[in-house]
C-alpha cells in the first residue's frame, strides 16, 4: 500500500511552517473566493442576466422615486423660502430709527435675514404685480408704509418670528399669512414624508426582488454549499463568493439603471420645460451625478443584502 505512506499526516497541522502557510492561505483565500464569485457571475450567465434584469427593474423604479422626491423637496424648499413675515413700520420714522428697528428684528431668535423695504420700493413692486399700472399718479401720494421683510431660519418658526416681530419698537402691524402658511407647511411636510416613504418602500422592493433573484443563484449551487459545510468550511468562506456575485449583479444593474436615467432625465426636463416653462424642475447637472451615485450605492447594497439573506438560509441550518 504505497499510497498510505504518502497520505498527508495530521502531524503537519502542528508544524510552524504549516501554520504560517495556513495564515497566508486565509489571506489568499479571499482573493481566490473573490475570483470564484466573479467567475460565478460569468459562468452562470443566464442566471446572472435574469438577476440583473430584475434588480434593474427595481432600480429604475427606485431612481424614479428618488428623482421625484428630489424635485418635490426642491419645490417645497422654494415655496418655503418665499415665506416671510412682514412688519409695517410707523409712519415718520427717522432713518436711524428704521435702522434700529431693522437691527432689533435681525437680533430676534430664529431670524435668518431682515431686509428693509422702503415705501417707494413697495409701491414699485405693487405696480409691477398689478401689471405696470402707474399708481403713484393715480393716488397722488404713496399710501404704503415702509416694511421689514423678515425671513425665518426655519419655515416652521415663521409664526414665532412674526409674534416676536410685533414687539420690535417702530413696528405697528405684522402679517405672515397665518392660515395659508400653516397649510402650505403641512403640505410640504406631507410631500416630503410621502416622497421619503415611497422611496424607502421602493428600496425595500428592490431588496426583496434581488433577494429572490440571488436565491436562484444560491439554489443552483446548493450542492456546493452543502459539501463546503460538510467538510468544515467556515461560514465566511461559503458566503464570500456569493456576496461578490451579488455585489457584481447589483452594480451591473445599477450601471444600466444609471445610464438609462442619465439619458432620460435631461431629455424629460427639456420636454417639461418646453411645455411648462414656469415649472421648477431640478436641472440635469444637479441631478445626474448624485443620482448615479445613489443608484450605484443602492445597487451594491441591494446585491450584498440580497446575497447575504439568500445564503443565510443555507448556512443557518
Amino acid at each position, binding site marked *: 500500500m504505497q499510497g498510505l505512506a*504518502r497520505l*498527508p499526516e495530521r502531524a503537519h497541522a502542528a508544524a510552524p511552517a504549516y501554520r504560517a502557510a495556513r495564515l*497566508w492561505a486565509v489571506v489568499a483565500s479571499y482573493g481566490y473566493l473573490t475570483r470564484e464569485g466573479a467567475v460565478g457571475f460569468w459562468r452562470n450567465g443566464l442566471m446572472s442576466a435574469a438577476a440583473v434584469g430584475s434588480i434593474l427593474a427595481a432600480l429604475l423604479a427606485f431612481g424614479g422615486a428618488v428623482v421625484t422626491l428630489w424635485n418635490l423637496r426642491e419645490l417645497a424648499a422654494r415655496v418655503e423660502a418665499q415665506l416671510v413675515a412682514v412688519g409695517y413700520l410707523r409712519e415718520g420714522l427717522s432713518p436711524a430709527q428704521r435702522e434700529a428697528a431693522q437691527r432689533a428684528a435681525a437680533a430676534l431668535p430664529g431670524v435668518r435675514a431682515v431686509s428693509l423695504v422702503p415705501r417707494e420700493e413697495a409701491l414699485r413692486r405693487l405696480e409691477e404685480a398689478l401689471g405696470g399700472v402707474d399708481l403713484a399718479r393715480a393716488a397722488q401720494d404713496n399710501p404704503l408704509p415702509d416694511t421689514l421683510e423678515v425671513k425665518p431660519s426655519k419655515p416652521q418658526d415663521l409664526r414665532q418670528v412674526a409674534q416676536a416681530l410685533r414687539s420690535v419698537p417702530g413696528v405697528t402691524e405684522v402679517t405672515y399669512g397665518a392660515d395659508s402658511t400653516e397649510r402650505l407647511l403641512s403640505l410640504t411636510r406631507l410631500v416630503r414624508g410621502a416622497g421619503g416613504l415611497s422611496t424607502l418602500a421602493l428600496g425595500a422592493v428592490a431588496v426583496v426582488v434581488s433577494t429572490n433573484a440571488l436565491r436562484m443563484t444560491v439554489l443552483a449551487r446548493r450542492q456546493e454549499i452543502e459539501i463546503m459545510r460538510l467538510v*468544515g468550511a467556515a461560514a465566511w468562506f461559503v458566503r464570500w463568493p456569493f456576496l461578490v456575485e451579488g455585489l457584481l449583479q447589483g452594480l451591473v444593474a445599477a450601471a444600466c439603471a444609471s445610464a438609462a436615467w442619465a439619458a432620460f432625465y435631461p431629455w424629460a426636463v427639456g420636454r417639461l420645460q418646453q411645455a411648462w416653462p414656469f415649472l421648477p424642475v431640478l436641472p440635469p447637472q444637479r441631478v445626474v451625478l448624485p443620482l448615479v451615485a445613489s443608484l450605484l450605492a443602492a445597487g451594491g447594497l441591494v446585491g450584498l443584502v440580497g446575497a447575504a439573506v439568500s445564503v443565510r438560509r443555507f448556512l443557518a441550518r
Partner: protein
Amino acid sequence: MPLIQLEGVHKVYPGGRVALRDVSLSVEEGEFVFVVGPTGAGKSTLLRLLYREEVPTRGRVRVAGLEVHRLRPAQVPLLRRQLGVVFQDFKLLPDRTVYENVAFALRAVGTPPAWIPGRVRAALELVGLRERTDAFPSQLSGGEQQRASVARALANGPRILLADEPTGNLDPDTSWEIVTLLSRINLRGTTVVVTTHNKTVVDILRRRVVELQEGRVVRDEVQGRYAGPRAAP
C-alpha cells in the same frame, strides 16, 4: 477518553418521530464499527449527530474532545475538519473533475494552495484513482465515484471517517472493494464508523457491530455478525 461518546442520547424529530432512544455508545480511537439495523432504526440519525447535522433532543455527544451537543454554529467547522463523511449518493460536484472535487474540499478548509496538489494526489492514490484524476463524475463507475468521495473525505487527514450506507448503490463486488478500502484506511489509525445493510461484508470482516432497532442499541459485539446470535441458525 473515547474518541466518540454518546450518553443517554434521545433524538425526536419535529413532528414527533422518535429516531433514537437513550443511546449510549463509546468508540475508541482506531476502532472500526459497523452500525446495522433495519431501515428507520436510527442509523443515519446516529451519524448525523456525530457530524452535527442534527443536535440531540437530550443527552450528550462527544467527538474528538468536542462537546458536539453544545457547539455553536460557528464552531461546527472545527468538528467537521476532524471528520470525513461518505454518503450512499457520493455527493460529488458533477461539473468538476475528480481532482477538482478533492481539491475543492481542501480549499474550503483553508489548506495552503501549495499543499493542495500533493494531498489530492496522495488521497487519490490511496483510493486507487490516480489514473482518473481528470475524469468527471459522470464518466466514472459507481465504485469509482465512491472512491473519489472517500478520497475527498480523507484528503484533509481526518481522525474519523463516517460512512452512511457507502455500498448502498453498489454491486456486491464493488461494495467489497469499498469496504476493504475503508478497512485499509482504518489500519492506518483512522477511526471508521460505517452504517450498512450489507450482510456479506459485515459477516466476512467480523468487526465490532452495533445493532439499532427502533432507535435503541440492542446489540454491541466486538467481533459481530450482521445478525445477532439469537437470529443465527
